[in-house]
């Protein structure tokens, strides 16, 4: 074999190696905060990526995000704040936003109005999963209520089909201001069997959660929350996804799609939190988490 073929071979190999980054690269992780949820996510992501062609090339805090263009092939923002700050920069690579509610994601995108490749993995559980969870958690409780603000006015539309499919009725009440919250809640609770809370920064914030829970307790209505903290505060149960679960889904998404971003999606994995004290206080006999999870799994396979 002569020199020339060798040179050609070398050039081919070099070209090939230049084409390879589409199948692997650096990931810049931007964390909203130094809290444990974010570091859990970060370490779970790193663990999920180990042994692949992708690796975390940079970690940043949301309050000090440098230009990221040359650093990474894709940016993973963790939390709402990280997405808001990262979107604020002009030269961004594709962004995968994680650990944020759908309402936040949509609100940030609307606020920033920046064109670019952005997708997300929401924290919000899909309506069908919620319906299945309520069905197995409180069998026989058919009427679910929901408090809505202008932030979540579209939610019932998304939920109604899934609830109907699960044999549940969904009622809602508007509570846009502080003053209308408790009257709205009172009127809603009088009509429904349980209160289903969906993430809404106008309604479910730290100042309001306790009065809402107390009011619901007065009506002896269980509250289905959306996070472990809500369950700790007094909600009967919640179905949620942990940062580690989201991190694994993030890694899977990147490995599968690379820099070509898919559409925003709901979390695929979830966890169940139950406050047994509340269940006892309300006189409810609740199945344990594993039972509910199995029942939900069986449901899905049946479909």
């Amino acid at each position, binding site marked *: 074999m002569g020199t020339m073929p060798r040179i050609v071979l070398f050039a081919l190999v070099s070209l090939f190696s230049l084409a390879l980054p589409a199948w692997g690269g650096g990931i810049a992780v931007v964390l909203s905060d130094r809290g444990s949820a974010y570091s859990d996510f970060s370490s779970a992501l790193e663990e999920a990526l180990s042994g692949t062609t992708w690796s975390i090339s940079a970690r940043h805090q949301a309050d000090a995000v440098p230009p990221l263009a040359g650093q990474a092939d894709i940016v993973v923002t963790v939390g709402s*704040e990280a997405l808001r700050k990262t979107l604020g920069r002009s030269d961004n690579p594709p962004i995968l936003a994680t650990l944020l509610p759908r309402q936040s994601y949509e609100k940030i995108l609307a606020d920033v109005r920046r064109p670019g490749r952005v997708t997300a993995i929401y924290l919000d559980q899909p309506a069908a999963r919620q319906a299945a969870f309520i069905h197995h958690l409180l069998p026989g409780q058919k009427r679910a209520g929901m408090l809505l603000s202008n932030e979540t006015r579209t939610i019932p539309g998304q939920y109604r089909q899934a609830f109907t499919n699960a044999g549940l009725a969904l009622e809602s009440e508007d509570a846009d201001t502080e003053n209308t919250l408790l009257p709205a809640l009172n009127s809603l609770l009088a009509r429904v069997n349980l209160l289903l809370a969906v993430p809404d920064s106008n309604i479910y914030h730290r100042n309001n959660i306790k009065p809402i829970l107390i009011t619901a307790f007065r009506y002896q209505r269980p509250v289905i929350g*959306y996070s472990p903290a809500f369950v700790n505060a007094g909600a009967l149960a919640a179905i949620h996804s942990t940062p580690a679960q989201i991190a694994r889904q993030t890694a899977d998404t990147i490995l599968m799609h690379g820099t070509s971003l898919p559409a925003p999606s709901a979390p695929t994995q979830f966890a169940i939190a139950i406050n047994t004290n509340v269940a006892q206080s309300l006189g409810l006999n609740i199945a344990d988490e594993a039972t509910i999870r199995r029942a939900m799994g069986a449901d899905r396979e049946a479909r």
Partner: protein
Amino acid sequence: MSQLTLRHRLLLLTLLPSALIAIVLVGYFTYSGIRTLEGELRAKGMATVRYLAPVSEYGIIAGQLESLHGLAQATVQESGVKATVIVNQKGRTIAVSGRVSLAAEDLRRTLSEPTQIGETDQWIAFAAPVKRSVSESDVLFEQSASDKSLPPEIIGHVFVEFDKTELVNKQRQLLQRGLMIVLSGLLILAALAIAMADNLARPVQRLVQAVKGMSSGRLDTRVPADTSGEIGILENGFNEMATHLEEVHFSMQSRIEEATAQLAFQARHDALTGLLNRREFEHRLEKALAGVQAGGDEFAVLFLDLDRFKQVNDNCGYLAGDELLRQMALLFQGRLRDEDTLARLGGDEFSIMLNNCSGPRANQVAEDICGLAAAYRFIWQDKVFAIGASIGLTTVTRKVRNINEIVAAGDAACHRAKESGRNRVCEQAAQLNPERRQESSNWASRIANALAEDRLLVEAIPLCGLQLPSGYHLVELTARLNEPGQPPVTLSALSDAAERYDLAPAIDQRLIETAIAAVSRAKNQQKLLHCLVPLSRASVGNSETIDFIARSLRSQKLSGNRLCFVFSEDTLTLMSSQAMEFSRQMRSLGCQIGLDDFGGGLSSFTHLRSVGPSYVKLSRSLTRELGGNRASTALLRAVQEITADQNIHTIAEGVDDTDTLEQLKKLGVDFAEGKAVAPSEPFEVWLEGAVMRSAQ
């Protein structure tokens, strides 16, 4: 402090500190109790509002006025709560219960913490903000981090007023209880302290009383020894000491009494003879005199003076003298009745008080005693002494004024008896002779003066030959002290004093001079005169006497054959060698030797050989009772035979009656002197009358 008794000190010591401590303690606890009550009220108030605030939170948020009202009412139901007010964020009252005292502006205040917002005497108010409680929601769902740091929203306030009257009541109660405790505690303490002090002080007090009793002389004082501990030891100790002291005191007392009795006895009695002494005798005499003056019987008092006591004392020592006195005391005592009183007045002087005895009976007793004394022979070792007594008798009559008169009269009578030749009884009535004889201490000067002033009267005692006319004048020289206004004193009375003051040789020389002069003068007149010259013991023992005699004889150119020097048998007994030497010298001068008082002692006869006397003067004891006493007569006869055999002339002295003279004559006594023969008279008178004018 020093004036307090033990009881007071104990009370003070126990009560004062404990009272102080009790007051301080109770005061402290009452004060802290009051403070605690206040603190409790405050803590309760703070706790009430602190709890009430969160409870009210939901009611305020939810605007549930009924429930808030219920809360307020429930709070007012709490003890001490006067009023409760709940206001909302804008300060508008939304619930109230009770009577509110707080001002409206207080209710509109904004607070950040529960606090006390007002206090008066009647009430105290607390307030707390009602904070919106915050639930931690999941950070992932929080819209923004900015509102996390905001402090919790204050949505209203609660106010609670507490009534302080209850607190004040409680505090008053506490104070009263404290005072009660102090008072009752102090009462109990005082009772205990008093009991304790009494318990301790009473035995001590008893001890003090007992000590006082002891020191004031009540030796039988004892304390009840029923206390335990140290006091008990003290009590027992005191009792033991008291017992001991009492015993010692009584034994001392009895010893003192014994000693006093002994002293009293000694004060009344003569130590040597055991007889009464002068003082006691005079005391009894006084009593007896008082009895007589009160109409009792008269009585007689004898005053005895032993003859020749001095010789015994001088020659054999005072032990012999003492023994003699004892024997004489026994002798006299044996003769007397129980009611008679025998006393030794001192020296060799005795006195006898004859109770209910006077006149002739008394005289008879005196004569008996005199005879006893004369007949008594005192034997000391190998020597025998004839003792006599000169007795003065005086009768105590109602006329006697005091005992001095009695003593003076008796003394004078005794003295007279002594002067008139010893061994006899003289009587003198008490009041007749108030003057006492001069003291013997004056003898020295009296004799010396008498010699110097030639007042020593030499007297002659003529002797009469009883058997055959002797053919010569035999005379014994004696001397008499003649003092103006004084009775004359015989030589025998003088001799004691003269010998004592060493004046006897001077008297003797005077007699020698007189005798030699008389012999010389008689010789010149062709008259035969023999002189018996008595010599004292001192003269016999003194060689100067011999020289003097020899010198005098030479100067008168006389041989000594007309002189006979007489000394007593005692002198010979006591000074044998000097007496024999004297005798030898005298015989060498041609002088003769005579023995006086011959036959009084048993040793008399040995002297006859050793001295070889020409004359012996028979002892009066031999010649006194010739009449009825055969023994005396036999003795005299034996003496007479011996002397006759030896060719020694016997002389009986003191022959006062012719009967005796006759008997002596019959017995063959050669010479006699006395009132029955011729009275004694001044030598010069006698010499002129009897010798110079005689036929021979």
